[in-house]
Each structure stands twice: as structure tokens, then as C-alpha cells.
């Protein structure tokens, strides 16, 4: 019996011996001990970047890693084997045209370092699809990445079958498979497309692109010297490259994954050359997983002219542009002087350790103005137009603005088995949660939280149903008022950009104050403690989703369903 045990031990040692040298090599990383044991070529966790964290590492947390595996696309492969991604191109599409587009793994260079990332059409950002309002186009999509995916056409009021929601409107597109999307463009404006499976990974790695829907009316916008799309993003990297994602579930579930490198149109050193005196129309889109930006143009005057789905009732001069994940704003900016203007994200970050606000400025890019503009649009810029067409459109809905809400939604969170120190810290630090999390104040706790432990929740206060238990039922023609309250007494309140698929809405009230300059939207930011009333114009039949557009929150459960029936065909019909 003793000899059997000894033999067994020898076998065990023999099996473990090839692993031990690798383990010793891995032990060199960071402050961690007791990593996941590397098995062959599998990826191991390393300490997440703690940029700007002033909090001392709490006892008991130094050795911890998220309770999910680590994942990176193309891990262990030679990065040079992937094709180099190209800068985005504009694809002008006429009514009835077809675009063939894939999602693939590519090689991209950011700040002089190469990464394996993902791209639509081999481009970063994906190709800008440009079409006229009222037209219809086809996109033949092929999945060439190593994960299932779909494409969601954000903000378009298109037919439900092409909304890109796995399990609801289509099956996932597996690797090597294709799907045909039919797009239609009923509303002028800037939209974007992105995956609707593991967005925290695929979207973060570069799967996003714009759709610009041009007006068919004359003089729809004021004249400008040039038009420029700006897609705002960030990405998380460290000395070893891209920081891994959670394999089975997202990490960074509490606050979302903040990046530490800012990107504009996929690059970290964006520059636009113009002539002094030009008025530039920027189409801003925020595709970051979680970061809300406060965009400034170094003193250049800014006029916001349009929101997600329509122009504002009245154009408005602003000092900066606040843009939440998934939102779009169209802004005209007047660069009157010949100089370099910094495009920045200017915020008041929170230092949780010291309990203070700390001003931070992140460089997003530059606009270099020289010479003199050939065409003078300064006078047109100086006028803040009143858009009678938008007002007339919204006039049809004003009688519903003060109706009682049809649905009352509370934004909250449920947790299970979160790290005990996280629980204790959150209990200590509950005196104040800011309206907007502009920065990642607690990077370690954030990184350790997974979508299994933090379940972000949409609570229907009228029925008690939560998240995907909710299936509101409406009919075409309904004007549905939803009151959304971001509960500050929840475990970790945070701002949420709330997105409704397939329909458009206006924000009627914010904290009881009537919104006096409306526009049609598909995504609205809801600060902590605030109550937002939205009125949904229900026009599009089918099964749809509404959800928080922080990628990690979405995949931690913060979504609900609603079904739109044809008029007279809903469950309430005939009552």
C-alpha cells in the first residue's frame, strides 16, 4: 500500500514537472501571487492598470483576480499574420445598393504598438455608410472573427428582423456564416452600427462604424465649410499589450471598462487640418464601453444643432459637449483664429481616497487652423436657428407630455458573492455618488467585479418584474411615457445611458423640470438620483429591447424586452 502511494506521488510529480518552470516564469508578473495556473498557452490574469488610483491597495485584495477566465483574440499567435487595418472610408450608397462587409481580426498600430483587434471591412472605424433619407440598402455580412456575433444598426427605425439581436430577431452569426441585413433610413442624422454579442469585447476591439443619413430637404442644416465624423473611444492597455477581457462573463461589471488610451476615429493622435475662419460640422459618436465625455474645442465656439435622431427644436451655443456611450451629437464649431486647437475631454475626476474633485484633461486630438477660409460662414454660424420642422413634428406629441407614466422603471443593482472588501468599501463610501462617473475611481474593485456577481437591474415598479422578465406590450400608434428613476440608494448607483431599439423618443422632463429644447433621441443619459420622463413614439412593430448601453452593464443583465403589435392587434385590443 505504501509503495502504491509512493508510485502515485511519483506520477503526480512527473505530470506537474513540465508546468513548474512556466509557473515560475509567470510568477514574475506584478504583485500577484497564486495566479491561475497557466496550462499550455492559456492566458493568465495580470494586475489591471491602476492609472491614477490613489487608494492604497486593500489588504486581502492584492492576490485577487476576477472569478472568470482571461481572454484576448489571437492570443499566442504572431500578430504579423493578421492583415493591417486601414483607415475608414466613406461608402456612398444609393437606394437598393448592396454592401458586402465582414468582421475580421486585424492588426492595428496604436501609439507605436501593434495589437490584434477586430474590424468591419478591414477598417478602423468600420466603413462610413452614407445614404439619403428614405432609401433602403442591403448589407451582406460575414463573420470572420473567432466568436459568434451579430450587427445592430443603432438608432435606425428599421424592420425588426434586421435589428441584430441574438435570440430575439435572429440567431447568432457563427464564424464563417453570413447574414443579410436590410437597412432603411427614415430619419436624417448620424447613426452607428456595432455587435450585439459580447459588446464589451467586440465593440471595444474596434467593431463599430457610422451611418450618415443625408437630408433630402434644401437648407436642412446651415452651411459650413466641411463636415467631419468624430468617433470617440478609449481602450485599456498596459506594458504587455491589450488588457484581457473576461472569457465567460465581463469583468469591470460595476463601472464598466474604462480605457486609458483615448481614441478618435481609432487613433490616439488625431489631427484635422483646416483653414482659419472655417466652420466645421462634427458628427460626434461615443462608442466607448462606459466613458462619458465632456468634449471641448479649446475655446472655439460650439453650437449644437442635432441630437441622436433629429435636429434640436432650437440650435444652442454651449461651452462643451457632454456625450454618453451610444449617443450622437451634431455640432458646428467656429475656428476663427489661425492656431492649433486642442480637442479635449475635460472632467472633474473623483479621488475617492481623498474625497475630492480633481480636474483632469485628456487630449483627444487637435484641429490645426492656418491660412484663411475661402468661404465665410461666420454669419450663418452666429445664428442659432429655430427648427420649425422639428417643432412641428414634436407638436403632435405635446398633449401627451404631462400624462401619467405608463411604466415606471427603477435602475438598480443586485449583487452576489462580490469580494468582501468591495462590499465593505461600498458600505463605507456611500455618502456621495456623483451624477456621472467621469473616471474610474476604484479600478481594482471594478476589475474584480464580473457580470456574474453584479447584476444590473431594470425594475418595473408597477409589476415587480426585473430586466428580461419585463415584456411590455404596445401597439403601433401608442405614445408611451416611461418614467426612469436612477436609484441613489442602490448598492452602487451610477449613470446609465438608456437606449430603446427601433423607436424614437423625446425627453419630456428631467427631475420635474420640463425639457424646453427637445429633439428625437434613441439614447438618454440618466444621472444618479435623477428621474427622467421619456415619451416613446411607437411606430415599429416587432420584438425589441431597451437597455443600458454601458457594455458591461448590458451583459450583466440591464435589459428588458418590449413587443409592438400592429394597431388593434395587441393583447389590450378590444378591451
Amino acid at each position: 500500500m505504501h509503495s502504491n502511494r509512493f508510485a502515485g506521488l511519483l506520477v503526480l510529480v512527473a505530470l506537474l514537472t513540465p508546468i513548474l518552470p512556466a509557473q515560475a516564469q509567470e510568477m514574475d508578473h506584478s504583485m500577484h501571487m497564486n495566479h491561475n495556473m497557466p496550462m499550455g498557452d492559456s492566458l493568465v490574469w495580470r494586475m489591471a492598470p491602476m492609472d491614477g488610483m490613489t487608494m492604497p491597495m486593500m489588504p486581502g485584495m492584492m492576490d485577487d483576480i476576477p472569478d472568470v477566465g482571461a481572454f484576448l483574440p489571437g492570443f499566442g499567435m504572431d500578430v504579423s499574420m493578421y492583415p493591417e487595418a486601414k483607415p475608414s472610408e466613406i461608402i456612398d450608397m444609393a437606394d437598393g445598393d448592396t454592401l458586402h462587409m465582414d468582421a475580421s481580426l486585424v492588426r492595428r498600430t496604436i501609439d507605436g504598438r501593434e495589437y490584434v483587434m477586430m474590424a468591419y471591412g478591414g477598417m478602423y472605424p468600420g466603413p462610413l455608410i452614407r445614404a439619403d433619407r428614405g432609401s433602403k440598402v442591403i448589407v451582406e455580412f460575414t463573420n470572420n472573427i473567432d466568436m459568434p456575433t451579430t450587427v445592430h444598426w443603432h438608432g435606425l427605425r428599421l424592420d425588426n428582423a434586421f435589428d441584430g439581436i441574438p435570440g430575439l430577431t435572429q440567431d447568432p452569426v457563427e464564424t464563417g456564416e453570413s447574414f443579410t441585413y436590410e437597412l432603411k433610413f427614415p430619419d436624417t442624422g448620424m447613426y452607428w452600427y456595432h455587435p450585439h454579442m459580447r459588446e464589451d469585447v467586440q465593440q471595444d476591439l474596434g467593431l463599430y462604424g457610422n451611418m450618415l443619413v443625408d437630408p433630402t430637404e434644401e437648407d436642412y442644416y446651415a452651411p459650413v465649410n466641411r463636415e467631419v465624423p468624430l468617433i470617440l473611444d478609449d481602450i485599456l492597455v498596459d506594458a504587455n499589450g491589450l488588457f484581457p477581457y473576461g472569457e465567460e462573463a465581463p469583468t469591470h461589471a460595476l463601472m464598466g471598462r474604462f480605457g486609458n488610451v483615448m481614441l478618435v476615429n481609432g487613433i490616439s493622435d488625431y489631427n484635422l487640418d483646416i483653414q482659419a475662419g472655417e466652420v466645421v460640422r462634427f458628427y460626434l459618436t461615443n462608442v466607448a464601453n462606459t466613458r462619458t465625455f465632456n468634449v471641448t474645442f479649446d475655446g472655439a465656439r460650439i453650437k449644437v444643432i442635432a441630437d441622436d435622431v433629429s435636429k434640436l427644436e432650437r440650435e444652442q451655443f454651449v461651452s462643451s459637449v457632454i456625450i454618453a456611450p451610444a449617443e450622437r451629437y451634431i455640432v458646428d464649431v467656429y475656428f476663427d483664429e489661425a492656431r492649433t486647437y486642442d480637442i479635449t475631454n475635460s472632467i472633474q475626476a473623483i479621488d475617492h481616497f481623498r474625497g475630492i474633485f480633481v480636474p483632469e484633461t485628456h487630449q483627444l486630438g487637435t484641429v490645426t487652423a492656418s491660412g484663411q477660409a475661402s468661404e465665410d460662414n461666420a454669419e450663418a454660424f452666429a445664428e442659432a436657428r429655430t427648427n420649425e420642422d422639428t417643432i412641428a413634428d414634436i407638436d403632435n406629441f405635446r398633449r401627451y407630455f404631462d400624462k401619467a407614466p405608463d411604466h415606471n422603471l427603477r435602475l438598480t443593482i443586485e449583487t452576489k458573492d462580490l469580494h468582501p472588501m468591495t462590499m465593505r468599501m461600498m458600505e463605507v463610501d456611500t455618502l456621495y455618488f456623483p451624477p456621472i462617473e467621469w473616471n474610474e475611481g476604484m479600478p481594482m474593485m471594478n476589475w474584480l467585479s464580473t457580470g456574474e456577481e453584479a447584476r444590473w437591474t431594470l425594475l418595473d415598479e408597477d409589476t415587480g418584474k426585473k430586466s428580461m422578465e419585463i415584456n411590455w406590450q404596445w401597439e403601433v400608434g401608442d405614445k408611451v411615457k416611461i418614467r426612469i428613476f436612477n436609484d441613489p440608494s442602490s448598492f452602487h448607483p451610477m449613470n446609465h445611458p438608456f437606449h430603446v431599439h427601433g423607436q424614437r423618443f423625446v425627453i419630456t422632463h428631467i427631475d420635474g423640470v420640463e425639457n424646453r429644447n427637445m429633439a428625437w433621441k434613441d439614447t438618454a443619459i440618466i444621472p444618479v438620483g435623477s428621474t427622467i420622463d421619456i415619451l416613446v413614439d411607437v411606430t415599429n412593430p416587432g420584438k425589441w429591447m431597451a437597455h443600458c448601453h454601458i457594455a458591461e452593464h448590458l451583459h450583466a443583465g440591464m435589459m428588458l424586452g418590449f413587443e409592438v403589435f400592429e394597431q388593434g392587434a395587441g393583447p389590450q385590443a378590444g378591451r
Partner: protein
Amino acid sequence: MKNPVKARAEATNQRFQGRGAGRRPALFCALAALGGGSRLPLRHTHVLPPDCSSRMFCPDMTRKFPLYVGSLLLLSIAVLASPTLDADSSPAEATPECSLVSSPDYYEIDLVTTRKVSGARLAKGKGEVTYAASPFGISVSEEGSYLVNIDVSMSNVRLDDDKVLVAWVTTPQLDQIKALGTLDENLQVTGQTDFNKFLLVVTLEPRDKEPGAMWTGPVVSRGMSRSGLMHTMAGHGPFESEPCAVYGY
């Protein structure tokens, strides 16, 4: 940490369960008004009884009418409205049109009297905080500081004819002071600030002088912004490494 406002609302709501969803909102408003004060339960709560399918926020009658008049009026509405409500109709359709008129509880500032000023020793007050108008739903300055409107209101104050109340905001370090304005005959004023953390201060000032760079009279009431409650962990507790006084709190 139990939210006291929520707890009070839950207690109020529990009393009204089972009395008919259709009648509930008007009765809520009426009985809340009888309860006195400007804090109608439904205005400051976000908890409903399980069978109440709409969240009603009724206009604050107590600012415009004496309490007993307001109560009588609301009771009359409840009596007159009740027979017209269809018990089978959706509560959302049957309820009167009321708008949300409350600022978020979370950022509301309680003004606490200093008890030092004659005529105002039992004064009550609050600062309701909402975002300045913005096309983005939330308003910040170019540097990222929240730009907020503060609706200041006081009650239980008797002033001499030559005195007024003036509202101010100041940083916790008192290094920046800004006048929000003079409270009117209803003891209300609205102003704006972009201070990250601030104290809201109401002082007694001469009627015949415009507010200057800072107050000259005694402090009647004061309160702290919600953001001002953000405390330093560096100054105490397991991470103490610096004196709390460094951060003024």
C-alpha cells in the same frame, strides 16, 4: 443604510393599500396635504404600493395656499373625482394630469437653523438642486463642473421690515463666495452655481443694500451639498495617512 425618506413613504403607502387603485392618487395628495408641510410623501419617494400603477406627483399646494385651504381643496378634488373613475380602467388613464415637480431627493440640501437669529430660531429651509438647462440632459462647465440651479425656500421666519434673507453658496474652505440672491416675499430665491462642493448659507442682511462679495449679517441657516459629504478616507479609518483637517472635513 435605510433611506429615511423611503421608510416614511413606505409607512404612508402601507396605510393606503387596498382602497382602490383608481382613487388612490387623489387621496394620496389630499391626505399628504393634511399631513402638513411641503413634503408631500409622493413627491419625495420612489416607492409605490404594489398595486399602484402610476407614480403621481401633485402640485405643491402648500406654497400657494394656507395649509387648511389646501387640504380642503384637495379633499374636494378627491370627493368630486372619485365617482368619475372607472374601476376597470387603467389607472394611468384615470388619474388627473400631474407633473413631476420634485427635484431629486438625493441632492436636496436641508437648511439647518443656527438658532441665533431672532425671528428665525425655528426656521426651516431647503435647497432643491436641479441641473441648469442643457441640450444634454445634464449641464457642466467647460472644465466639467456640474452647473446646477438651486431653489432656496425658507419658512417659519419673521423678519423686521428693514431686513431680508440672502442666500449664498461658498466652498467648504470659504475661499469662494457667491450670492445666489435675495429671498422674495415668499422666502424663495433661485440661483446657480458650479462649485463642486458647496455650503448653502442664508444670512440676515439689510434690505436697502445689494448683496456684496460676502455676507455681512448673521447666518440664519446653512446646509451642505450632497457632494460636500464626500469625505476623505485618507484622513481617518484604516487608510489614515493625513489629518482630516487638510480637506476641511
